[in-house]
């Protein structure tokens, strides 16, 4: 059992990371007061842009890792740009935030494939990915070393760094305080001189950038190929955000939980001790356990109070 755990742990982490960063981005958006169910689409956009940039650069610099970093940045930029569509609709036009998010999902899947085909000749773009590595020293720590520091990807550490920075930014800086105020009580923020609409723009754009990064992270770690979808991970990220109660560490726990449970479910088919369980049980396991966990933890909800409400400074 232990060796199995050891083996699947790094994969669970790799699977968690895109979910984590996407949910974290959504946290910024929702904390600023804007629901973003367009995460799936934004991830796809990031995946496309990451693949496009990286594949082009890899033609020239086939073995350079910096190429991938450029791809990641491009993916973040693309996600951010695309999220402006959502920001504009939900902040300037006070449109229904859910419908504009849904539209984002619809547009992204179709448009990126079209662009991919026009720009590269194929709707699928392959790139060469990051290579996993062992963290020196740390990987030799008993137990933890095997679980957390072997077969790690640079992206993982990058995302965890963002998580730390985000947590600090959210709770220890004026920016974070203002952002949270906009999601809780935009009128209070306004009265205190905070520019609510700008903050919400920032929130949505961070969400766009992080989702883009999430999509590119899938591409540059375990998939290696853009193909116009991210298998509904955006919705799972949204669920993790709520499950994680809109807190960075909660989101970390929730996404890791999903990552771990789905990885177990995925590989169970080739683990003899688990293979005896009917496959349907294994496949629904992550979702059922989540429901149970929600029942246990979700007595109180910490949803930002004003999330989803268009801000109208005249209204009281």
């Amino acid at each position, binding site marked *: 059992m232990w060796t199995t755990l050891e083996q699947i742990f790094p994969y669970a982490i790799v699977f968690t990371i895109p979910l984590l960063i996407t949910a974290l981005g959504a946290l910024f958006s929702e904390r600023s007061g804007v629901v973003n169910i367009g995460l799936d689409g934004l991830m796809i956009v990031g995946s496309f842009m990451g693949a496009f940039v990286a594949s082009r650069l890899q033609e020239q610099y086939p073995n350079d890792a910096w190429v991938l970093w450029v791809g990641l940045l491009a993916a973040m930029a693309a996600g951010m740009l695309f999220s402006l569509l959502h920001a504009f609709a939900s902040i300037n036009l006070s449109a229904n935030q859910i419908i504009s998010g849904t*539209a984002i999902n*619809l547009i992204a899947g179709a448009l990126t494939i079209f662009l991919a085909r026009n720009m590269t000749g194929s709707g699928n773009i392959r790139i060469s990915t990051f290579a996993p590595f062992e963290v020196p020293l740390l990987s030799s720590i008993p137990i933890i070393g095997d679980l957390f520091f072997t077969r790690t990807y640079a992206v993982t550490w990058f995302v965890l760094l963002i998580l730390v920075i985000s947590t600090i930014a959210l709770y220890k800086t004026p920016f974070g305080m203002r952002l949270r105020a906009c999601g809780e009580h935009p009128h209070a923020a306004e009265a205190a001189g905070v520019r609510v609409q700008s903050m919400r723009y920032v929130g949505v754009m961070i969400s766009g950038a992080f989702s883009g990064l999430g999509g590119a992270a899938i591409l540059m770690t375990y998939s290696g190929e853009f193909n116009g979808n991210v298998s509904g991970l955006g919705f799972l990220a*949204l669920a993790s955000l709520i499950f994680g109660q809109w807190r960075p560490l909660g989101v970390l726990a929730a996404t890791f939980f999903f990552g771990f449970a789905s990885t177990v479910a995925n590989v169970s088919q080739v683990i003899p001790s688990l293979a005896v369980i009917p496959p349907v049980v294994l496949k629904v396991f992550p979702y059922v356990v989540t429901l149970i966990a929600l029942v246990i933890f*979700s007595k109180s909800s910490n949803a930002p109070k004003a999330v989803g409400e268009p801000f109208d400074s005249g209204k009281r």
Partner: protein
Amino acid sequence: MNMIKSLAAVLLGLAAGALLMALTGHNPAEGYKFLFEGGLKNPERIGNTLATATPLILTGLSVAFAFRTGLFNIGAAGQMLFGGFCATAVGHLVDLPRAVLLLLMVLVGFLGGALWALIPGILKARYNVHEVVSTIMMNWIAYWTVFYAIPSYFKGGSETESRQLPANALFHENWLSELFQGSYVNLGFFIAIISVLITGFLINRTTLGYELKAVGFNRHAAEYAGIAVKRSIVMSMFISGGIAGLAGVAQYAGNASSIQIGILPTQGFDGIAVALLGANAPLGVLVSAIFFGLLYSGRGFMNAMTEIPPEIADSIIAIIIYFAATSILIDRLYRKYKSRRAANKKQGG
């Protein structure tokens, strides 16, 4: 007046779509000509538009009903799949005169979808579990349940879909197909229309609708009024899920004749957009679903007749939805403005 405004909103969307066509080097006028011809040109195409709209009417209605009672049912896909699965099971296993069988399938489909939504309903009412998460989870549970149940019990010619339903258990109707010249429009469309009417009636005219809406608007006031709040939440989800279940019946025993595994029906998510575009009103949903049906159904023709590739056609539709959605605002603002004006006039005078 209202119709003109909604139309204006949709026109804005179409204009944005035109812009995209022009930007990608295609002729918008031609594109739209074929888009609409594709959905309306002849009776068959009209029939297909209605058939495409049928499950959308029902999922849209399901989402809209939940919205009206303060719930966001993002799980219509799973409810539709499971409801459709239950109805399919009945269609395979039960042998009854056709009319009775079809009614039974409708009933069981409704109950299957309702059951699937009941769980999030109970979790919400009893444990305050956010319905968005729980319905997303239920989607995947439905996906996998059906995924394994179909090959085990109703295996068809291939592993990825169920056996075809016997003709007795299908909603296809010859006179309808003939009327629409071979279109696959079927009795499901009438189920949808009837559901729209019943739901509209339920929401606006009955004490049950009054209760459910009151709970949606203000839980505390509903409690004060003596309404059983928790039961109402469960009831709302139950009905919403049931309507989504009907979408499954219409889809799998009407538009199709078998269930495919390995996909969540896209109508579940489209239903959200349909509901919101229809302003969450049953009749609005009907119109907006038919509009969606027209777009989806005409798209292929536009694609075949012009150089616009399918992906651009998809994007154009998405952009139309986006702009139509955002410009609903125009309408809303205008109405608000007018009503306030009227109100204040009276108050002031």
